[in-house]
């Protein structure tokens, strides 16, 4: 308890240190008080709209509060002020109904215009399917084989305060979404389980990802850069831990990246054929486990009693291989929290993580699972 208090007070100082070393990224400054202007035309007009409405509100506020404070200062009984008894005036009532209505119409015009811009359905240059999962994003570049998951990459140790927090704490991912600048990129959004919401402030895109249905949004980014966002709709336990990172790059760089990714996908296929040693599998499995499984089953494999079963000593992880493969690949029939990872992880990663689970945390099963075993299991089923 005492130790906790000490940390509580020591923290602001530590935070200052972390901050001073920040290479400032666009907009993400400390003590930020306003919406970021963004890097798309729509984001800019949204920002302008926001500021317009804000200043109108400030003007009305100054007027209303001005009158109020004036009378609170002048019209006090303690100053001997005698109360007037006037009340009811149709003209005054009409004035303060009509003028606000006119102001509102003045606000509605630019708002409607911006909304029409956002709903533009002109053909896009690139279509990317964005799928929300508990608790990560999947990006499919339509028309190519490139498809990957994007997970939070902030290590657990930073979240648990066992390590200083890095610059982009909670706003960093293993695989960012890469898009070219000056191209209209259309996002098709859906979700695999519950409702998520894909939000990148600098792109002024926030759209719900709803299981079973698709939504669309688009952005044409003006400047290269890294833009960070987060899931905006409560989607369960790790809602706060599924960030979005968008990397906007020049077109040539984008094309190079895309073909490189397509090649890597082909290579991954080849890896599937390879036979790995136990150590290789175990080491890779540990990484996969910490990225994918540890959020629920915990880094020490102990799970969370009542919510997420332990891997250590689990009947499945120390039982027949078939059952273990089945639950990891196809998910649990009884507990929807245990998802089907068969499509989410590559064969190599599945083999590695299952090998890891069967041999870590004191589960000394001694067996290894090869990628080809996974493939066979999937196909024979």
């Amino acid at each position, binding site marked *: 308890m005492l130790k*906790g208090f000490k*940390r509580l007070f020591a923290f602001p100082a530590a*935070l200052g240190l*972390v901050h001073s070393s920040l290479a400032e990224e666009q907009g*993400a*400054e*400390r*003590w*930020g*008080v*306003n*919406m970021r202007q963004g890097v798309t035309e729509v984001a800019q*007009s*949204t920002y302008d*709209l*926001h500021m317009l*409405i804000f200043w109108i509100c400030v003007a*009305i506020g100054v007027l209303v*509060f001005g*009158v109020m404070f004036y*009378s*609170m200062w002048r019209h*006090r*009984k303690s100053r001997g*002020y005698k*109360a007037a*008894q006037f*009340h*009811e*005036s149709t003209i*005054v*009532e009409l004035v*303060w*109904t009509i003028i606000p*209505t006119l102001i*509102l119409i003045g606000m509605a015009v630019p*708002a*409607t215009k911006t*909304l029409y811009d*956002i*709903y533009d359905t002109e053909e896009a240059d690139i279509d990317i399917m964005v799928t929300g999962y508990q608790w990560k994003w999947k990006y499919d570049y339509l028309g190519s084989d490139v498809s990957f998951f994007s997970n939070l990459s902030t290590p657990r140790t930073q979240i648990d305060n066992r390590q200083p927090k890095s610059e982009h*704490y*909670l706003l960093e991912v293993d695989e960012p979404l890469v898009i070219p600048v000056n191209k209209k990129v259309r996002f098709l959004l859906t979700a695999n389980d519950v*409702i998520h919401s894909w939000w990148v*402030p600098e792109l002024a895109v*926030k759209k*719900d990802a*709803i*299981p*079973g*249905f698709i*939504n669309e949004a688009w952005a044409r980014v003006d400047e290269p850069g890294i833009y960070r966002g*987060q899931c*905006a709709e*409560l989607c369960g*336990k790790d809602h*706060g*831990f599924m960030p979005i990172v968008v990397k906007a790059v020049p077109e040539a760089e984008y094309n190079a990246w895309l073909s490189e990714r397509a090649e890597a996908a082909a290579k991954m296929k080849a890896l599937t054929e390879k036979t790995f040693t136990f150590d290789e599998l175990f080491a890779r499995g540990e990484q996969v486990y910490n990225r994918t499984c540890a959020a629920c089953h915990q880094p020490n494999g102990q799970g969370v009693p*009542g*919510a997420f079963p332990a891997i250590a000593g689990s009947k499945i992880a120390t039982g027949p291989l078939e059952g273990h493969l089945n639950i990891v690949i196809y998910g649990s029939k009884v507990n929807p929290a245990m998802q089907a990872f068969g499509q989410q992880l590559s064969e190599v990663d599945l083999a590695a993580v299952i090998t890891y689970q069967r041999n870590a945390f004191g589960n000394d099963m001694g067996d290894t699972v090869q990628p080809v075993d996974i493939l066979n299991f999937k196909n024979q089923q």
Partner: protein
Amino acid sequence: MAHGPQSGFKRWLFTTNHKDIGSMYLWFSFAMFLLGGCMALVIRAELFEPGLQIVQPEFFNQMTTMHGLIMVFGAVMPAFVGLANWMIPMMIGAPDMALPRMNNWSFWILPFAFAMLFSTLFMEGGAPNFGWTFYAPLSTEYAPPSTTFFIFSIHIMGASSIMGAINIIATILNMRAPGMTLMKMPLFVWTWLITAYLLIAVMPVLAGVVTMMLMDIHFGTSFFNAAGGGDPVLFQHVFWFFGHPEVYIMILPAFGIVSTIIPTFARKPLFGYSSMVYATASIAFLSFIVWAHHMFTVGMPIAGELFFMYATMLIAVPTGVKVFNWVTTMFRGAMTFETPMLFAVAFVILFTIGGFSGLMLAIAPADFQYHDTYFVVAHFHYVLVPGAIFSITAGVYYWLPKWTGNMYNETMGKVHFWLAFIGLNLTFFPMHFVGLAGMPRRIPDYALQFADFNQISSIGAFLFGAAQIVFLFNVVRTVMGGKKATDEVWDNPQGLEWTVPSPAPYHTFSTPPAVR
């Protein structure tokens, strides 16, 4: 008729007296306010600094959910019903509520509802963790088993509210003293009459939406499940069809209280009584056609976005009429600033700020940036805390001398006010900033650039919490004794409640008063 209260526990269990029931509602809601407040403090303590310190994300989500549910259904709504019970019969010259036995039931089922809701915290899988808006499918297919108990407790709360609303309507329409025409009723009575109709219209919709959840979870229907031909977005439409009128249920009676208090301390009649009545009615009407502004990012055809944007912006007009009326009532009055007036004035200022952020949120394209961020959290806390909570507090200070016959301690009241006022602004004003800077709501941990303002918010929250202890102490002291209050208490206040002695006798207006 002439007998006084029974003694002991039975008095409270079997009472049909509107004053007893009103007191029980008020004490119950204060207890819930403290409970929900403690949950808010857990949330703020966790958010004091980045990283996970005090609670884990599962429990954090249970706290946000329970905080919202308890504050909305346990603190604000019962407090207004309590004030209605105490004041409406006395304001319209009625001997009691129209349906006194139903009145007893509608109170006594509440503790059971909340005991059931609270017990989910100790169930396997934990309490509901899907936010007070409980969007499907997070609240159906992916919900903890305790959700069934949550649904039943919502049913009971709904039944209680509907019974309370029926009682209030029947009292107002049937029990007014001769000469008390509708357009002579105090504004608190008017706003409550409209609120009661809203309650009857939308509480069954809430009951309906949780019933559909129940059937989806246990009986294989697919109202909200796409696999069976349903649609999770339908949930949001039904929920907000209830939810938007619900937020006005929590603010209309507040308008009534403030419209009662400001004229008293400005020593000047309310500027536009009838326009206040019409403004309240138009706000109530508009509340039924704006619900989808909570869902601008869900994906709607542009016509839908435009309709809901325009309709929502329109609400600014009657709300503006109200604010202008209060300010004009103060203008050239002879004001004094006793505790109820301080809270009422703070209400006008801070509610207006909440109104401004509401207007900003109404602008659909800008809402795409604000939606589900701390900007929204700041907005609704600015309308609910200074709106509902401050007006209830103002009402309690205003009428406490009439209820107890004793004056509260003015100094302590002022200390309470300033602590609460500073605490509230420290807590919620920085939330505008972090929201605009990009912090989503309902997250247990956040990026480093939000750290400073979150720390300020957390400090403010504890200050606001401390202020409530002063309030409790002051009220308890006043109930126990203190300087005797006069029958009029204040300087020439308007209303029948000031024509009866202080403390108000157990039975008032057994014979109807003459209304001028």
